[in-house]
């Protein structure tokens, strides 16, 4: 019985070791039904929040290139390293990766000239 339990435990550990380290812990995307990105690559920024949100670095993630068409999608990613850091520092340091793409400008349509 003990041996079976030990084997199951070992298998679970093996599974976690095999699957988890290379993966993100979570990845979530915010987008719209009209998503039509102008960019073919994500722009990235690591955002860190210190002292339970008292200080953010950067204060806000600002894109200066998207212009009036705004964002097409935003992706927030955390991973096991970020999570460990969060736990070990008792929440003092909280890191996420933010990625985004700009939305295309609407097309110019017409008959001219």
């Amino acid at each position, binding site marked *: 019985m003990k041996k079976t339990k030990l084997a199951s435990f070992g298998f679970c550990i*093996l*599974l976690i070791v*095999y*699957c988890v380290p*290379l*993966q*993100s812990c*979570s*990845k*979530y*995307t915010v*987008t719209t*039904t*009209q*998503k*039509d*990105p*102008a*960019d*073919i*690559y994500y722009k990235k920024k690591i955002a860190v929040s210190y002292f339970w949100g008292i200080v953010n670095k950067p204060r806000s993630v600002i894109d200066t290139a998207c212009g009036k068409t705004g964002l097409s999608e935003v*992706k927030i990613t955390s991973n096991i390293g970020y999570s460990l850091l969060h736990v070990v520092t008792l929440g003092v340091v909280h890191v996420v990766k933010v990625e985004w793409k700009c939305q*295309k*400008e*609407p*097309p*110019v*349509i*017409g*008959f*001219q*000239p």
Partner: protein
Amino acid sequence: MASARIQATNIKLLSTVHENFKQPIDNLFNIFNGDNPNVLAGYNETTTAIQQFLADALQKKKSVRALGGNWSWTKVGFTKDWMLSTTRLNRIKRTLPEEIEPSFGNFESDKLVFAQCGSSIQELNTVLRSLGRSLKTSGASNGQTIAGLISNGTHGSAIDTGSSPDYVVGLHLIVGPNKHVYIERASKPVVTNVFIQKIGAEHIRDDSIFNSALVSFGSFGFIHGVMIETDPLYLLNVFRKPMSGDVVRPLMQTLDFTNAPFLPRPNIRPFHFQVTINPYDTQKGYYVTVMYKEKYREDYPRIVTDFNKAGPGEDAPILLGRITDLVPQITPLIVSTTIKSGYNEIDNAWGTHGEVFTTTMLRGKILSTAMGIAVENTNKVMDIASRLSKEHSFVGVFSCRFVKQTFATVGFTKFPFTCIAEFDSFEAQSTWRFFNALWKELDDAAIPYTFHWGKINNLDASRVRKMYGNKLDEWLAARNKLIPKEMLPIFTNEFMVQTGLVNGLGFV
């Protein structure tokens, strides 16, 4: 007033939407239209900017490849030198009666639309709907650009409509710093000199060059504009339900619907016919999607999507791939669960083309291979695949879509009716084992097939020759005839050299 411009991003490593490889490149450039409100005047400014870009590439001996939605799984649309992102080039010119040849038929407003290369399928769906028109067909999603869509021969499953290149009737190609051409078929001329003068291009009417350029993955020059033929806005009446293989398989083999009383509209040939197969469920594992084309009306029930439903996360594919590599015994469970959540039954839904083939939210490391096979070989191939999936614990589903033969010279839907046999899965060792075994068995069984250019394949020069025979010579001759000799290396990439799609080497 801002002019058209091209900006270097200094991105040196590029991946696809599906993240299945990373390609080192010299640079990625973004190209922007200027803000000239006149559709074609602005378009022509961009033509000049692209010509200047090609002059720079020629001087610096850099190969160039235009990039659309970056949707493909293969390096067919990549080069190690200069990549040019075209997504912002989305002007759409409506045609006037004096621009269209009378021989094309009675002028119909917006039957012909001239779209700049980066216009996405989503944009075209939206714009055309506002004009009371629709694309004839597209892929299952809408993230591709029009030039990218046709360049790989993207297909849907509109049986008697064909693939996306088949509704293209003209191409504006920039083939060098001093040469840009508008090509169309001599056997079906479409535009008059009035239109040609407006874009300032050389006019070429040649069936062989045109049909060759349709599916050419960016190797026939920079596709700047595409003249497409549209349909009046229509509705699709959509049904999907799981069925037994016993009733579905005869249809997959013949596309003869005259004896199909079990379909929602008994014995009627549908506009769209698709079968998705769960290889681990031989009872009711055939998910049949049929769509019937109807005249547009305003009072149809709209499709409502539940965005709050739980679904797979972005890392699900790679994680499930690893888990099933480790514990292959759970593969049938994973596949059955995935197919049940992703292929829900649809009963009598209605939507326009753009509403039915809408934005996909699927992400992550998905792998897909697709082969064109003659429709009469469909079940033979599916049986081989079914056996191999069990042998290799393939964590995926099979899909069969059907289209009539394409006009494109090296279009992969080359059979009178082609079944596009598609095998989608996660990034996993089992997936690669299955793909390799399947390709080998098809070779051993001497079943003729082609590969979707934009999906995972094992193409090399001898395979391409075997698949396209004399058509390949016609394609090569057309390319050499169209493109100035000094520009051939500019439009040649590593994939083309590897697969024998060049007569001589480029800069690679």
